[in-house]
Each structure stands twice: as C-alpha cells, then as structure tokens.
C-alpha cells in the first residue's frame, strides 16, 4: 500500500552493491536480469548435458549406456528444462534488462514483484531438478499425456515433481508477465508512442500477452492432474467417465502459444540487430508489429495441430490445418522484412550479426517443416517421429537459441561493460552453426524413414545407426561450441571494463547511457521522436555521439532493497510443494498451512513496507 515518499532520504539507505545479501534483496531490474541470465544459462547447460547423454545412448542400436527409465527421464527433463528453465528465463533476462532501458524507464513497474518472479523461478527450477537426487525425475514427456500420468501408470513422485514444479514456475511467469506488460504500457519515455517502440519491446509485449492468456490454461490442467493424482478424481481417467483427450486440448491450448512465447523474443532481438548491423532502419516496421500480433492471435487457434493423429474428425482436422498454414503468412512477412532490412544496407558481419542471420536462415527450415506438419494426412506419418524433433529443434535451437545468443553478444558490452572477443565469437558461431545442422538436419531423414521419437533405443535392422551417429558427433561439436562461448565470457570478465557506451552504433535508448548502466539508468530521459532515437541524436550530432558520463544519482529516488519477495517466494514453494507429501503422511496439510502462512505473512510485510 502506498506510503508517502518524503519521509525517506533519497538513495541513502541503499546497501552497497556487493555481497550475497545485496543480490538476495535486490530489486534493480538489471541485477535481476543478470540473476535470470546466469541461472537460466546453468539450467540450459544442464538440459544440454541431458541431451548429450541421450545422444550417446542413441549412437548405436540396442545400446545400454543408460537404462530405459533414465532415458525417459532425460528427454522429459531435457524438454522441460530447455523450455521452462532455459529459453523462457533467458528471454526473461533480456526482458528484465532491456525493456526498461529501451523504453527509457528507471525500472519496471513493480520492482519487488520482479524480484519475486525471479525467486519463484529459481526455487521452481531447483524443485523440479531436485527430483534427480532422489531418483524420481519426471519421465512422462514434456507434454505429459494423460492417462500415462495417472497414479496407476506413473506411480511414484516423478510426475508429481513435474506437475508441482510447472505450477511453481507458472507463478513466476505470470507475475513477470503482468509486470512487463504494465511496464511497457505505462512506463515509456515521453514521446515513445506504441508505434515508436523498439521491435524487441514490441515482441516482448506480445510475448507477455501470450503468457497472460496461455498460462492460466495449463494452470488449470495441472490442477486437474494434481487432483487426479492426489485426491482421487477422474478428470482424465476413463474409469470414472473422464477423457484423457481433455488433457491434450488444455495442454496444447497453452502449448502452442507457448512455442511463440519461446520464439517471439528472439524475433525481437533479431529485429534489433539486423538494422544496426545493416546500418539501415528496420524494413516495414509497422508490418513487423502487426505480423507479430497476428502470429500471436492465430497462435490461439491452432492448438489441435498437435493432435491430428488422435482422430478428431475431418472438420476439426481441416480447420486446424488451415489456421496453422495461415501462420506461415505473417511469419513470411517477418522473414522478408528482415531480408529487406539487409538489402541495400552496409552489412557489418560482427558476431551478433552472424548469429542473427543464422537465426533467420535456420528458422526458415524449421518453419517450412512446420508447414509440412500442418498437412494432417502427411502429419500422420510425421507425428511422433524424429521429423518432428527436427522441426522443433530448428525453430527452438536454430530460431530461439540462435536469436538469444545473438542478443547475448549484442548486449554483453552493455550489461558488463566489456566487449566479447569477436574472433572467438565467430569461431563459436561457425561451430554452433555446423554442429547444429549436423545434429538436427539428419533427423528429417530418420523421421521420414520411420524412427519414432522418445525411444531409448532402436533395433539394428532398421538401419537408423548411421545418421544417429552423425547426429551424436554433431551434438558434441555443438557442446564444444558452448565451451568456446563460456571461455569467451570468462576471458572478458578478466579484463578491465573497456566497452564504450555504444559499440555498435545502436539505434535505441540503451546505447545513450554508460556501459554498464548506472543504477538509475537515465539521469534524464531523452525525448523520443522516432523508433530510432539514438540514430536521431547521432545524426543531429553530425554522425557521432559524445561518450556519456557517469553522473551522480543524488536526488533520484530508487526503490529500496527488500527480502520480502524472496520470503514470499519460499511461501509459494512450500505451499505448492507440500502436495508431494499427500501420500507419504496424513498430516501433509500442516506443511501446506506453514507455506500459506509464510506466503501471507510475506505478502503483508511486502505490502506495508515502504517501497522507496
């Protein structure tokens, strides 16, 4: 609740910016962004290691490197980790760090809510991975189709960790989505109309809308599943008249928008990088905005394309097929506008640009195989084979991860004040590009030639060995490419800060302030007259911009640190996590009540604590 601001001395009570405590209590969107980034990158590596183990197992037929149970856990956790703990929070890192900077704000709309999102995300990620330690890792696939997930067919805590973990992560995503949405609606610099927002902000904005509308559906689906598993209902169980297909509908009503949640931030990043490194404004800005919005809109009307083999009947098949195909049009618009941006430009092939171009080139492949899946009769052959695995890695890795990596190279200097080595960056790019294509292109062949997905092994006489081996070597190359990246960042961290405020001749507001930015971002927010305010200033200055000076922040009110968000996050964890114990002991609800008490106490303390 609002408290008057005057009785706090400006900025004086802020803790020094060091020590663990300062990270736990921070409400600075930039530091939270870094927390998101580091955590998500570690989870990403974990998901990558899971993938590598799977690849080793699949290297030869009838391999026994891992047991079937472990393999099932590996792909389930790989998919879940990459999506919910890798790509989404990596995007959240960029949302956190760059939405406020790009719209000229001092922070997000609700800084403490932002911290809360991070802590819930971290605890949720730890919770779900904790299952490995007690040998109960989720093992029913990342979309956990009912009725395999019922108590009868999935006894043990494996699926419970998955259900409750996703529920916890959902809380984090929802809180963050509301926060960023409001930030973009309400915190823009003077003059920054909606149609002057940087494309990254636009795509992030649309992503938040998707999150807000898609997550409630999975929340409910997970509640039903939890009830089935712990409270003896039959939402998805035919024994009581329920229908497992309901799960599929609810999951994919969420799931398809989710894949656009994964890719749109990357679209935004690429739309930032291509103009800057072509030295030419984004081609067809308005079309880019509306195509993004249209993709999101259509994204809610295609969910059943994941269910063509369920026998929904010809009318539903036809409807969802056509709506799915239609998405190729706005996506095509994006691709063509990107090429249009490069066309006639003066391309500076620095590392971020390479990754951005790589993203465009590879996303096309994934998009085209997507259109092939959208043809239901043909999809009957493709679904649940490696052809699908090829599709989604082209869009998820070739699209999302390449885009995010491009963003990492592009914004690293801004975030840490240090340049990443360009030569090493290029090495990283080529290794990743080759490794990626060697790993995933042959999956098209394997899928069409009959290799189903989610098999821990395959018989030798189906001749899947050759391509599987190629893929495994490719994935190892891919793994090494990330070591190059890590080495590059490590080297950079050992150097003194050397990055100028604007190493790339950037077009947007974040390049007008020192690298890394000061806590308050902008001492004075510059007026905005176009979608490329930094270029406007640069032109006004005859082609150069003066290096911005660090200034004293005296007199600028910044939100004060708080640990109540972290406490409240613990409350969320305990409340939801307590359901794990329903079968274990009858007094389980005491844990729930404890969690709820922490949660409520945290909320009250948070609400009554002065924000500044």
């Amino acid at each position, binding site marked *: 609740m609002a408290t008057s601001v005057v009785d706090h001395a400006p900025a004086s009570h802020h803790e020094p910016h060091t020590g663990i405590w300062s990270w736990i209590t921070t409400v600075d969107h930039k530091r939270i962004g870094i927390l998101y980034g580091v955590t998500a990158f570690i989870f990403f590596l974990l998901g990558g290691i899971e993938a590598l183990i799977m690849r080793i197992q699949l290297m030869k037929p009838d391999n026994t490197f891992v047991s079937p149970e472990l393999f099932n856990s590996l792909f389930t956790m790989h998919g879940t980790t990459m999506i919910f703990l890798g790509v989404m929070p990596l995007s959240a890192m960029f949302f956190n760090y760059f939405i406020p900077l790009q719209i000229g704000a001092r922070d997000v709309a609700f800084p403490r809510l932002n911290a809360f999102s991070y802590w819930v995300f971290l605890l949720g990620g730890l919770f779900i991975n904790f299952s490995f330690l007690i040998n109960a890792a989720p093992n029913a696939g990342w979309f956990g189709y009912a009725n395999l997930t019922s108590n009868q067919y999935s006894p043990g805590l494996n699926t419970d960790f998955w259900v409750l973990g996703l529920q916890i992560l959902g809380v984090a995503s929802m809180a963050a989505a509301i926060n960023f949405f409001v930030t973009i609606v309400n915190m823009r610099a003077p003059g920054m109309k909606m149609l002057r927002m940087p494309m990254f902000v636009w795509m992030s904005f649309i992503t938040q809308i998707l999150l*807000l509308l898609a997550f409630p*559906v999975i929340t409910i689906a997970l509640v039903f599943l939890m009830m089935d598993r712990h409270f003896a209902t039959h939402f998805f169980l035919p024994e009581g008249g329920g229908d497992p297909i309901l799960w599929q509908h609810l999951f994919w009503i969420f799931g398809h928008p989710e894949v656009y949640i994964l890719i749109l931030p990357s679209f935004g990043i690429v739309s930032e990088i291509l103009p800057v490194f072509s030295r030419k404004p984004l081609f067809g800005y308005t079309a880019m905005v509306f195509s993004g919005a249209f993709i999101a809109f259509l994204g809610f009307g295609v969910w059943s394309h994941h269910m063509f083999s369920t026998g929904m*009947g010809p009318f*539903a098949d036809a409807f969802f097929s056509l709506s799915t195909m239609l998405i190729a049009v706005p996506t095509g618009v994006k691709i063509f506008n990107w090429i249009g941006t490069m066309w006639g430009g003066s391309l500076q092939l620095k590392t971020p640009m390479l990754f951005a171009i790589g993203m465009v080139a590879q996303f096309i492949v994934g998009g085209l195989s997507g259109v092939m899946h959208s043809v239901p009769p043909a999809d009957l052959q493709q679904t649940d084979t490696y052809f699908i695995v090829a599709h989604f890695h082209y869009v998820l890795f070739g699209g999302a991860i390449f885009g995010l990596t491009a963003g990492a190279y592009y914004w690293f200097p801004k975030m840490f004040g240090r340049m990443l080595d360009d030569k090493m960056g290029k090495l990283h790019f080529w290794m990743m590009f080759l490794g990626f294509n060697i790993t995933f292109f042959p999956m098209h062949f394997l899928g069409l030639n009959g290799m189903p997905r989610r098999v821990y092994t395959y018989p030798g006489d189906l001749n899947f060995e050759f391509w599987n081996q190629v893929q495994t070597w490719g994935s190892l190359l891919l793994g090494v490419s990330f070591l190059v990246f890590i080495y590059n960042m490590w080297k950079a961290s050992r150097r003194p800060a050397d990055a100028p405020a604007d190493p790339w001749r950037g077009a947007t507001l974040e390049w007008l302030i020192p690298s890394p930015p000061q806590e308050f971002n902008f001492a004075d927010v510059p007026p905005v007259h176009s979608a490329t305010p930094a270029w406007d200033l640069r032109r006004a200055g005859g082609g150069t911009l003066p290096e911005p000076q660090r200034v004293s922040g005296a007199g600028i009110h910044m939100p004060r640190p708080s640990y109540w968000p972290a406490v409240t996050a613990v409350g969320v964890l305990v409340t939801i996590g307590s359901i794990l114990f329903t079968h274990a002991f009858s007094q389980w609800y005491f844990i729930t009540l404890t969690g709820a008490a922490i949660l409520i106490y945290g909320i009250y303390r948070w609400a009554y604590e002065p924000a500044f």
Partner: protein
Amino acid sequence: MDAHSHAQGGDHAHPTPGLYFKVALVLFVLTALEVLAYEVGHGRMGADLQRIVEPVVVMLLLVLSAAKFALVAMFYMHLKQDPKVLTNLFIWPLLLAATVIAAMIVIFSYWRVVGAK
C-alpha cells in the same frame, strides 16, 4: 497516490450513487428473470408456457447473463468512463475465453459420436 495522475485516470463524469442503485435494481430484476426462465422452461408454470420457453431457455439465459455482465463491467467497474485501454484489456481475453469454450464444446461433441463406434 497523488491527485495528479488520478485526475488523468478519468475522474470526469463519475456516476453517482443514484445511478449505482438503478444498476443494482436492474441486476436484481435480470436475475429474477433468469430464474423465471429456468422455472418456466422446466414446466413450473404449466406445460403451455414450457413448450414456448424451453427451446430458447439457453439463449435467454445467455442473453440475460451477458446483460448483467455488461452492466457490472460498464458501471461498477467504470469501463464506461475509464480510458479505452482498460476495456481492451478485458474484452479481448473475454472473447478469447468465450471462443475457447465454444470450440471445446464443438470438438467434444464430435469426439463422443465417433468414439462410440
């Protein structure tokens, strides 16, 4: 909260308690009509009326509840005088929600028929 941003938030032409009261009355009447539709539709007031009302009872209920919904949203939630942004924040998700419900009903009705064979 400072007065400044509040004024921008649409303090103009605030409805009065009198208007609120009228809305409450209408809501009450509409609710009564809903229950009436239910009763008549199921034969409480004789078979003749039932024959007329029964086929449209679902329609009637939907219309009545939509009207109540709109009244609360417009007057009590102030969408009528607040900035349009807020209306958009509500109306689009609402339409999506309605579409999802309708789509699910359609899809499941087919699913049941074919699955029995």
